[in-house]
């Protein structure tokens, strides 16, 4: 058996695994109930089974029908942008908006094709000022500006 359509092969596999996961997890942990009084497991089991079945069809068709290759993954922008976002979220509470925004802007800028310190610093300054004026002052979102350990934050 040769895989003729790699895109279908992998997406079929993805759907089968996801569907089976929801199905099995629901069967183990929740009550099925009956068709009249459906328990919390009923709908997920139905859908999980359906998803796995659809995945299986796609998976099998990958061996029968010719299809395009999976295009190359570009891990650098994917990882740096995801990491930048996560850093922003988890740095906000302890270190404040100024540090969190810096982490997001600089890390994600590394994911691009070219990185020029001067440009990114200016971009960061503009975005920081904008966030502060519009979101903190204007829309009064309760973001901390300074890190936790700074007792009297000069910027609010």
């Amino acid at each position: 058996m040769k895989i003729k359509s790699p895109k279908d092969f992998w997406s079929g596999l993805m759907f089968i695994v996801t569907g089976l996961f929801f199905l099995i997890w629901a069967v183990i942990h929740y009550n099925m109930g009956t068709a009249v009084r459906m328990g919390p497991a009923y709908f997920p089991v139905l859908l999980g089974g359906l998803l796995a079945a659809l995945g299986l069809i796609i998976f099998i068709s990958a061996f029968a029908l010719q299809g395009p290759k999976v295009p190359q993954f570009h891990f650098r922008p994917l990882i740096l942008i995801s990491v930048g976002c996560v850093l922003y979220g988890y740095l906000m509470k302890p270190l404040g908006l100024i540090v969190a925004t810096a982490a997001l802007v600089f890390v994600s800028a590394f994911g691009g094709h070219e990185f020029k310190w001067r440009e990114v610093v200016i971009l960061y300054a503009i975005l920081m000022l904008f966030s502060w004026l519009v979101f903190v002052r204007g829309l009064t979102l309760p973001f901390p500006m300074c890190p936790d350990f700074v007792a009297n934050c000069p910027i609010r």
Partner: protein
Amino acid sequence: MEILSNLWLGFQVAVSPINLFYCLIGVLLGTLIGVLPGIGPIATIAMLLPITFNLNPVAALIMLAGIYYGAQYGGSTTAILVNIPGESSSVVTCLDGYQMARQGRAGPALAVAALGSFFAGCAATLIIAVAAPPLAEVALKFGPSEYFSLMVFGLIAATVLAHGSLIKAIAMVVFGLLLGIVGTDVNSGVLRFAFNIPELSDGIGFVIVAMGMFGTAEIVANLELKGDREIFTKKVTNLWPTKDDFMRSWPAVLRGTALGSFLGILPGGGALLASFGAYTLEKKVSRHPEQFGKGAIEGVAGPESANNAGAQTSFIPMLTLGIPSNAVMALMIGALMIQGIAPGPQVMNEKPQLFWGLIASMWVGNLMLVVLNLPLIGMWVKLLTVPYRYLYPSILVFMAIGVFSLSNNAFDVLIMAVFGIVGYVCVKLECEPAPMILGFILGPLMEENLRRAMLLSRGDPTVFLTKPISAGFIIAATILLIVVALPAIRKKREEVFVEEA
């Protein structure tokens, strides 16, 4: 003349200073993101949803709606001037619009696009005003089984009309439905698929998923494309079309408006389908089909009218049935839910100000677009010269702020990043994220209606086929599936045969 009094009420709401202000913001933002490739109305609306928390529902919806139809205007500008479709719905405008610009007729192309869009916008506003009330009337009589079948039909139709593999689109819908289940089960109070994470007890935030799938995933996909965009800003002179242009355009505008309005109402329809359909139609009915692709003004007038009409009439199923016909409408439903309004046929009677205000604001917004955009074209084109390396960190900052502010929780940002990765993988595997979003928003509703229908029928699943309206939806969905599956099979077979021969 109930419609007139209703529209009068709507205009009173729409022209109040605060609503005018948000309408202006909406259409300006819409045009802006329409001009910029790489960020579309879905990501923008998702980004702004958290901010609408603090607005009143009318202003929030007016602004978000303005973004959607405003984007159709902006998309055509860049398509004509620089051959870049700022929006996927203006891809076909590139074909003839850009050729016209090369022949020194950018002005007439832009004017026809704007005026055609304006006409389509006015017509679509009227269509919504006329068609929505009777539809809502019918929908009020729907029971759980009818609703369930309607949702099945809506989801199937949405996948059928979407491009790409049908079966993958359906699988994505089911995937979305499953994700919609995460959280507390309303009937039993059981926590489902929460994995002991307290943040998941209310389910995964719709906005967060949409931002990940359409925002971060799209940025990563854009960063793969190397090379800078070639920009040349020629001065646009002589905006006014000639008499011949007028004579050739107006029938195209009429046809485009009619087709676009119709395609917009269908589930899965909207601006994208409308513009492609209109271009094909114009080419078919034209006496000079050989001119298409070489600067035929009908090729600009038809699709541009159609995409605007389609963008607006796609509000009809959302407003009257509470069923989203495309991903943008799913976000609108999200916006309503954030405001504590359950979408459905009752909205029109319970919140006439919201309903008619929104409709009237579309007409006002279209007027603003025509008045503002023609003089501002130079500015929009200049914006295109901003390199993407400045744009995407800015977009990310706004997305991160928006998501974090939802509940001041870092976990939400993490979920966004996770769905960014999921979205990227899906794009690579040619699985469309839009059907997933539709499924995600309909998941809880579908389960609830399925439960009620089965309870009422004492567990007899044939209820969906014995009730006439419900059976009609199921039959329509089945026919759609069969019709679309047939040529797909044939085409695939042909491909295989070619390979083997």
